[in-house]
């Protein structure tokens, strides 16, 4: 197939490698080709964002990397090992609210560490640090029912970060946040990431956010989806607040916008206007 890009020698064992993966859902109402022939790699220490029209298979892609879904075609490998199920060195932030409503914020954030078997004192200490990072200090003993949607999402982010994963998979983690909180948490995430330099696969529909955070932005096509273009974000790091105003930032943003628009029109029909 022409879309298959052969895995070349630039890729390493430590990468997250997508080898021509695809996912087809069979349901009562027929088959959905959610993802078709996605190839590529997230190199060690790189931040990759994925953008694409709604329903193109971004969450499906993430679930396959996280080992929650088995691809119907091809395979994903991390550190040279094929992904057959959830891995201990991977953490996920889901698109929907995934907080445990009977646990306090502290115990929600510590949940992943608790499952890993960390002693209480240690996991609470780590959880407290993450709670501070996501700006929820003072809410440790609250339950999710007492939090806003954006706060719950920050709990989920803190839970994933607390696990100190080598591969961090985030599905529109800032979707429920307002613009200011979004930028604040985005900067915090970058700050943490500059220190850990783990591999991040980040799904968003916010083009600015993708450019600001990433080393590469993958633009997915409408279903059946492929990675239509990989845009390298060659902005220097660290990226201070003024980064958004750089001419190069604008250029990249415009380029991505044009790519996304074509795909969105395919999904929504010609003449559809983007919000």
């Amino acid at each position, binding site marked *: 197939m022409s879309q298959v890009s052969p895995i070349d020698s630039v890729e390493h064992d430590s990468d997250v490698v997508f080898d021509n993966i695809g996912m087809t859902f069979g349901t009562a109402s027929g088959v959905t080709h959610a993802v078709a022939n996605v190839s590529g790699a997230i190199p060690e220490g790189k931040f990759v964002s994925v953008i694409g029209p709604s329903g193109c298979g971004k969450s499906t892609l993430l679930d396959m990397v996280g080992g929650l879904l088995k691809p119907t075609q091809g395979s994903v490998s991390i550190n040279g090992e094929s992904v057959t199920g959830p891995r201990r060195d991977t953490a996920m932030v*889901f698109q929907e609210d995934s907080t445990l409503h009977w646990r306090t914020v502290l115990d929600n954030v510590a949940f992943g560490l608790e*499952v890993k078997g960390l002693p209480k004192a240690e996991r609470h200490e780590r959880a407290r640090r993450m709670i501070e990072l996501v700006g929820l200090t003072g809410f440790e003993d609250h339950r999710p029912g007492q939090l806003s949607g954006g706060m719950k999402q920050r709990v989920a982010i803190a839970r994933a970060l607390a696990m100190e994963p080598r591969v961090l998979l985030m599905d529109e983690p800032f979707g429920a946040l307002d613009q200011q909180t979004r930028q604040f948490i985005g900067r915090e995430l970058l700050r943490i990431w500059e220190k850990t330099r783990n591999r991040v696969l980040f799904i968003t529909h916010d083009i600015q956010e993708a450019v600001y955070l990433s080393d590469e932005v993958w633009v997915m096509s409408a279903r059946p989806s492929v990675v239509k273009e990989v845009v390298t974000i060659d902005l220097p790091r660290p990226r201070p607040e003024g980064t958004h105003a750089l001419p190069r930032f604008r250029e990249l943003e415009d380029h991505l916008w044009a790519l996304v628009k074509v795909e969105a029109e395919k999904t929504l029909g010609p003449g559809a206007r983007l919000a």
Partner: protein
Amino acid sequence: MTVQEKTSSVQSQQRTPLVSRAALVRWVIILALVAVLEFTTRTGMISQSLMVPPSEILTRLASIVPTEQFGQDAARTLTTILVAFSIGLVLGIPLGVFLWRVPAAGRILEPFIVTGYAMPTLLFYPVLLALMGLNAGPIIVIAASMSLIPIALTTMVALNAIKPILHKLANSVSASPRQYYLKVLFPAATPLIFPGVKLGFIYAVIGTVAMEFILASQGVGFRAGFYYRELNTADMWAYIAVVIVLSVLVNSVLTWLEKRIRRDML
């Protein structure tokens, strides 16, 4: 923070008088009913062969409760209820989990279980008596099977109602099956299972007292039935009053527990 504390204290300030007012009205209704009963039985509007005045029930109770026989009857009835309910829990919850885990089994077995729910299980009582003899055994079997059904059904429904994202989360952090059940499934399902457990307890009480009433050698229900057949209305009502008090007590304990669980979980 402070604003939140303020609003919650305002809410609770508003809520408490409402709750106590409802409780007050409830007590007034109960006392009024008792007064009406007292009046209608004393004046003969209700025949004393059907119902004796509440004051007389009280004096009967005062002489019955201290006796050794009453102690034995009450102990027998309580242990029978507890054993039946425990069996209902121990079998009902795993059955509910099984029906949820194996949806095909759920689809096949559900009609049977619902039929079991609707069927007057007491019809099997004579058969069980013949098989097991006149002891607590047959009563436990019937009361336990009555108790098990609502527990199993609500367990299945509660587990089915858990958001798929929680399964995804447990899976993504590589939770072991044990962790999955103890840290995710049961806490998530408990508030929904609890009404079924409560119903299961009530069924255990009904099953036990009703079977004792029909035929037994001991127990509060047996004693009520015994005096009924002896046309001793006053003592029959004294034992009925014991059952009523028992049900109210158990129900309020369960309601209190349910509230606690809900508060901790929601």
